[in-house]
C-alpha cells in the first residue's frame, strides 16, 4: 500500500496521546494505593492531560487531510454497526472528551468523594480515569481493526495488528510521560522510565513477531486466480492506462526493495534500541534531557514503523498491475 502521511501522523499521534493518558492514570492508580506519591498532583495531571490533548488533536487534525470531503466527516459516525472506521470516528472524540474532563477535574481541584465509604480521596477523577482507560483501549482496538479486519490484506489480518498499535502507542506514551515528569514530577521519572523500558521491550517482541510472520506469509491470490487462467507463465502486456491510474498510485509504495528493508532496520533501531538505551542512561546518570530525546527518537521511529507497516502490505489488486 502507499503510505499516506495523514494516516501515519493520525495513528502515531493519537497513540502517544492515549499512551500518555494511560501513564497518568497508572500514576493515579498507584498513588491511590499509596505506592507512589505525586507532590504536585494538580500541575502534573492537568498538565499531562493537556499534553495528551495536544497529541490527540494533532492526530485528529492530520486525519482530516486524508479526507476528500472533511466537511461531511460527521456522516462517518453513522455506520458503527459494520465499520471499524466509523467506530473510531465515534470513540476518538469520546476519548478526547474524557481526557479533557479528567484534566479539568484536576485543574480546578474539583474532586469530591462519591461515597462515604472508607476509600482514598480523588474518587471522581479515578472514576473518570477508569472510563478513560476503557475508552482508550477501545480506541486502540478500533484503530488496529481498521487494518486488521481486511482479510485479503494478509500482512494486516492478524490479532498482532491491534496488539501492536496498543503496545507501540502505550510505550511511546510512557516514554513521553517520563520526559514530562522530569519537569512536573521528578519523583516519577523512575516510575515512568522503568515502565517505558518494559513496554518498549514488550512492544519490540510483538512487533518482531509480526515481522517474522509477514516474512513467511504466503499470499492466497495469484495472477492465476485473479484472471482465472491456469498457466504458470502469464505476462502482462497492457494495464489499461498509459499514464498510471488510482490503482497504480494508491496501492504501491513506489520504493525499491532495498529502501523498504532499510526502513525496517531504521524503525527497529529508532523505536526500540535507542530509546531503551537513552532511558536507561537517563535514569542512571540523572541527565533528564535525555528523556525528551528518547521520546523524540522513538516518535521518529514510529513514523518509520508506520510507513513500513503500510508499505509492506501487498494488496491483491496489485496482481492486475504487474508491469509497474
Amino acid at each position, binding site marked *: 500500500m502507499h503510505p499516506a502521511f495523514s494516516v501515519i501522523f493520525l495513528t502515531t499521534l493519537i497513540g502517544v496521546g492515549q499512551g500518555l493518558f494511560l501513564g497518568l492514570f497508572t500514576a493515579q492508580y498507584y498513588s491511590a494505593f499509596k505506592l507512589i506519591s505525586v507532590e504536585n498532583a494538580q500541575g502534573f495531571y492537568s498538565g499531562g492531560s493537556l499534553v495528551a490533548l495536544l497529541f490527540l488533536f494533532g492526530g485528529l487534525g492530520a486525519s482530516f487531510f486524508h479526507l*476528500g470531503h472533511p466537511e*461531511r466527516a460527521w456522516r*462517518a459516525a453513522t455506520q458503527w454497526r459494520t465499520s471499524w472506521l466509523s467506530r473510531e470516528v465515534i470513540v476518538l472524540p469520546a476519548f478526547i472528551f474524557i481526557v479533557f474532563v479528567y484534566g479539568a477535574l484536576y485543574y480546578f481541584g474539583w474532586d469530591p468523594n462519591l461515597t462515604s465509604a472508607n476509600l482514598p480521596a480523588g474518587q471522581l477523577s479515578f472514576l473518570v480515569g477508569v472510563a478513560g482507560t476503557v475508552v482508550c483501549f477501545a480506541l486502540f482496538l478500533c484503530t488496529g481493526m481498521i487494518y486488521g479486519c*481486511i482479510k485479503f490484506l494478509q500482512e494486516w489480518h492478524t490479532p498482532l495488528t491491534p496488539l501492536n498499535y496498543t503496545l507501540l502507542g502505550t510505550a511511546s506514551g510512557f516514554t513521553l510521560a517520563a520526559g514530562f515528569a522530569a519537569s512536573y514530577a521528578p519523583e516519577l521519572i523512575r516510575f515512568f522510565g522503568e515502565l517505558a523500558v518494559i513496554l518498549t521491550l514488550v512492544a519490540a517482541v510483538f512487533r518482531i513477531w509480526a515481522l517474522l510472520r509477514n516474512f513467511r506469509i504466503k499470499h492466497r491470490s495469484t495472477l492465476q486466480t485473479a484472471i482465472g487462467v491456469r498457466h504458470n507463465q502469464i505476462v502482462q502486456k497492457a494495464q489499461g492506462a498509459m*499514464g498510471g*491510474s*488510482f490503482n497504480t498510485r494508491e496501492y504501491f509504495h513506489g520504493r525499491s526493495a532495498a529502501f523498504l528493508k532499510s526502513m525496517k532496520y531504521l524503525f527497529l533501531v529508532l523505536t526500540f534500541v535507542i530509546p531503551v538505551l537513552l532511558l536507561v542512561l537517563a535514569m542512571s546518570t540523572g541527565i533528564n534531557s535525555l528523556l525528551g530525546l528518547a521520546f523524540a527518537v522513538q516518535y521518529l521511529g514510529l513514523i518509520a514503523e508506520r510507513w513500513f507497516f503500510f508499505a509492506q502490505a501487498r494488496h491483491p489488486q496489485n496482481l492486475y498491475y504487474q508491469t509497474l
Partner: protein
Amino acid sequence: MTQLALVIDLNVCVGCHACVTSCKQWNTSGSAGPMSDDRPYGKDPTGTFFNRVQTFEVGSFPKTETVHFPKSCLHCEDPPCVPVCPTGASYKRKEDGIVLVDYDKCIGCKYCSWACPYGAREIDEHQKVMKKCTLCVDRIYDQKLPEAERKPACVLACPTSARLFGDVHDPDSMVSVAIREEGGYPLMPEWGTQPSNHYLPRRKTKMHIHEDELVRVDNPLAKEQFKVPDSDDPFLEDASSW
C-alpha cells in the same frame, strides 16, 4: 431476488477498448457529473474510469495466447467494500444487487477501495469521491429509451458481443445459461466475495476431420479415381448383354 451482472466472454474479446470509451462517454455526461481527467492529451494522461481493458500473454512462444481482460466492479453478492464504509455512501441495492456509491454522502476516505480485492474502485481526484461501475443504473431502467437500448453502455458498444448483461439469479436468463453451459467462472473465489460478474474462459475451436470426410467416396469428379480407359479395355457395350 434479482442480481444484475455482466458476463464477459474472454474468448471473443478482441481488446478494442470500445467498452472503455463508451462507458466513459456515457458516465462522464450523466447527472452525476464528469469523470475527471488530468492531462488527457499530455505526457502522463490519467483519469477516472469505471472499466479498463488489460492484456495478458499466456505461455511462451510459440505456444502463446493473448488474453484481453476487461475489468470493472463485479457487483459482488457479498461485497467487502460495503460494510467498511463509515458513512453508508457505499451500498448494495436490495432490488437488483447493484453496488453503488452515493456521491453526496461519500467523504473520500478511500477505505472501501482498500477493501475491494479487485481494485475496482477509483477516487475521482477532482470531485474527491469514490467512483465505480454503476452498471449504467441511469440507463437500464430509462423508459424513454427503446427497450433494446436499456443495457449498460459497454454492452451495447461491444462489437463482438463479448459482454452479456442480465439477471444471474434467474436460471433461464441468457447470462445464467452462459455461465452454466460455457464454463463461466468468478475472479479470486478465495475471498468469498461471490462476484456476480462472471468470465467465460478462452475456448479452443477444434475440428476433427477424418480422411473419408476429405475424400467423398462417390464423388463423380474425384480425379484420383478417374481412370482414362485405354483401347484394350472392354467398352460398356462389350459388357452389356443386350
